[in-house]
């Protein structure tokens, strides 16, 4: 299981890019942490989600 924003999902083996493509996130408005480390945008396609990973997708909204 992979924990994403606190929710346990059965998606181990998928890449981060594949997971994000199935969501409503705008890829230009997010930052992704994996086990406390930033995942560089250029590596979303090669980052394979592992059993036990903890992922945080930080979604930015406008205003400032």
């Amino acid at each position, binding site marked *: 299981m992979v924990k994403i924003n606190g929710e346990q999902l059965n998606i181990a083996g998928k890449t981060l890019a594949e997971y994000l493509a199935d969501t409503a996130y705008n890829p230009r408005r997010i930052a992704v942490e994996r086990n406390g480390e*930033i995942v560089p945008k250029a590596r979303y396609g090669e980052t394979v989600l592992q059993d036990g990973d903890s992922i945080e997708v*930080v979604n*930015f909204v406008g*205003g*400032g």
Partner: protein
Amino acid sequence: MTSKLIAPSTARTEPEAVPSREAWNAALTKRHGRELQERFSAAAVAVCGLGGLGSNIAIALARAGIGRLILIDFDRVDITNLHRQQYKASQIGRDKTDALCENIREIAPYIELEPHTVRLTEENAASLLKDAGIICEAFDKAENKAMLVNTVLEELPDKYLVAASGMAGLGSANAVKTRRVAERFYLSGDGVSDVAEGLGLVAPRVMLCAAHQAHMVLRILAEEFEP
């Protein structure tokens, strides 16, 4: 009994002489204690974007006695900024960097200010931010926020980063929080209130999000790392 309005021109008092640097430092040391004030005055904090968040963050940090502010914005003061940003009607049309430096100088005459009137990009971020120990993300657009956060976390992993997302509208002030997303990455805001929906930004809610960010900066400097 009659009352009369005092015309603006006669309401002004002669400016007092600005206190000396020594008197200034002594007043801050008395307030914060020597150890804490030495940390504040030795700190260099970058504020990226000088709008509703950034202008309020910068003024709060200047008042607290932060030693050096790196202030970055390409934009000019516009009439549509004055409802929430720390500028004056007389400053419309001026570079925000220039206007904010003037306003900060009136509050904190001895602070070191490093203004950059440029658009912060993936390409120039690392060089503009290299001297900052703590970086505040204070942009308006979600894409720019994400760009800066990704760039800082990838290229400047030793910096502390305090970003903001979600402070538009008239939602509860109590929904605005700061959380620690990673060891050196903090995020203030309610996370969801997008400026694109509803009535946009109002001064108090933007100011309290800015206050969250500025306060987190002070807590980091005091080595209180939990929000």
